[in-house]
Structure formats: C-alpha cells, structure tokens
C-alpha cells in the first residue's frame, strides 16, 4: 500500500518538475528574448488601436544599444514606475527636437536638445498622448523593450 503511494508521489514530482522547467523557459524567453504584449490606449493611433493590440516585443535591442529614432518602444513610465507605456522614439541624445507643445489648443512649438543618456519619446497621436512633451526626455535606462510586430487583430498582422 505504502509502495503505491510512493510511486504516485514520485510520478507527480517528476511531472511537476517538467512543468516547472517549462515555466522557467517561458519566463526566461518572456523576459530576455521576446514576448507578446497587450498595448492599448489612444496615444499611438493610428499605428496601434484604441481597444488593444497584441504585439510581439523583443528585449535584446535595447541592451545592445540598438534602439534608435523611429522605433516603437516599451518604457517604464517616469511618473509611475509600475506602469509600462508604449511610445515612439523621436530623438536620441544630442539631437535637437522641435515639437508642438499643445497641438489641440495652439500652434506654439518649442525646441529642446536631448541631454546625454536620454531619449525623446512621443506618441503617434500627439493630440492625446502623455509623453516627453509633458514629462521631458527620459533616461535610456528606462527602455524595457522594442515593439517588433503586431499579431492580433489578424487583419493588422505585420511589422510596425
């Protein structure tokens, strides 16, 4: 009787070990290589939908310093460290940025030089985006990943 229990226990431990190893691999891939991400909100219209898109984001480029102007990136928000936001990199350190301060109300524009180690990010929908025009250039170290392509909805499938 006891022998049967030990056999069952051993099998369940073996199965659990396989599941644990799979979750391990999944976690490593999701954190360091690439993972699907749900992005939503109005600030990246028309590139990304209001109600949510699933995109594949990769986590290798920013470690190698390969993020540049035009890339859509995932960033840890400088105003709330628990929040991740999706914006486009407009300028890198040393570049000069001219931007419309509040396009829905006025035509006033400002020019800023991006300081060392920082990037300037803006949402594609400048009328409804809380980005570097509001909180200033962000340190490069806050970039978490680069958006690669969209996988859902299917009719929007493809690189951004």
């Amino acid at each position, binding site marked *: 009787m006891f022998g049967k229990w030990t056999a069952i226990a051993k099998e369940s431990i073996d199965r659990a070990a396989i599941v644990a190893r799979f979750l391990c691999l999944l976690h490593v891939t999701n954190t360091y290589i690439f993972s699907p991400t749900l992005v939503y909100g109005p600030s990246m219209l028309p590139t990304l939908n209001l109600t949510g898109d699933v995109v594949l984001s990769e986590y290798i480029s920013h470690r190698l310093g390969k993020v540049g102007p035009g890339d859509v990136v995932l960033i*840890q*928000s400088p105003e709330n460290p628990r929040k991740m936001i999706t914006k486009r990199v407009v300028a890198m350190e040393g570049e000069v940025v001219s931007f419309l301060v509040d396009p829905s109300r006025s035509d006033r524009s400002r020019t800023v030089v991006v300081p060392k*180690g920082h990037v300037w990010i803006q949402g594609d929908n400048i009328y409804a985006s809380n980005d570097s025009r509001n909180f200033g250039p962000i340190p490069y170290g806050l970039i978490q990943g680069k958006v690669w392509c969209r996988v859902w909805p299917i009719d929007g499938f493809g690189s951004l």
Partner: protein
Amino acid sequence: MSLFQLWAFIVKEALDKSFLVAKFFCAVHVTDTYLCSTALVHGPSMLPTFNLTNEIVLLERISTQNGKAGPGDVVVLRSPENPRKFVTKRIIGTEGDNITYIVDPKNSDRTETIIVPKGHVWVQGDNIYNSYDSRNFGPVPYGLLQGKVFWRIWPAGVFGSIGRRPETVDPALKVVEQSNPS
C-alpha cells in the same frame, strides 16, 4: 560495447552533467536578479560610509521593486547619463518632498530648493564635496533604481550593515576604539 555505444554513453553523461550546471546557474541568476545581489563600489562620492577603494556590498532587490526604498537608503541605480553605468548613492527624498541642497559646496554657500516630481527620487552622495548626483543630473525616475544596499561584506574589517544615516567617522576606525578601554 561498440565504439558508437561508448560514444553515445559519454555524450549522455556529459549532457546530464551540463544540465545540472545549467540548473545551478539558473538558480544563481534568479536569486541575483530578484532577491539579493552583490556589487563592487568604488569612488569618493560616498565617503566616509564607503571607502575610496573597492568594497563589496550586498544589495536586495525586493525593496526597490515594491516601491519600498525611501529616504536614508543607500541604493544602486543606473546612471541617467550613461545607461551602462551603475552608481551608488543615498536617497535624500522621494516624490513630493521638498529638498534644499547646497549646489556647489566647494565654491559657495548657495542653496536651491526643489520639489521632487512624481515617480522620481533625489539621490546624493554622502561626500557632497565630491559627488556627481541629483544636484547635477536632477531627480532620478524610480524605475532606474536597481537595489538597496543593506550589508557590506568586504573589506572584512567593516563587515556589517549600512545604516540610514551617513557615517560621520570612517567605519574602519570604530573597531580600534572599542578594543582600548581606559
């Protein structure tokens, strides 16, 4: 056994052993990234708490990930000016705090007051005469903090915890004082 069988046996043994090593490195990496890590600190900006030459400290990553790192804590953060460089400083204030600081203590007594914006912290080195910190690069977003320094493990003479106040005396001298009762 044929040559092929021998070779297959050796390969299987090698794979088993290397899986064991890989699992060990996995565990070390998870602990290092999410629990407790080590860091080498050097430089004059945290004198006298940390010496000029290399010291090894333990940092824990749980406080910074849960937003529990506050004023008085020594933290390791990614430099906002060079994302590949890590610096060790002390948190002076968190979001909403009023910070009054001496802009350039070597040359003048001028002070400035600033309110730390939302989601940011103000860090300064304990040695304000020779420290490149928030007085130079401004408040730092909380997301750049990597871990809180809580223990020093090398040199052995100053093994012990790191307090929430800057040391006023070189910690290595304290040991000598105690062993000389008058």
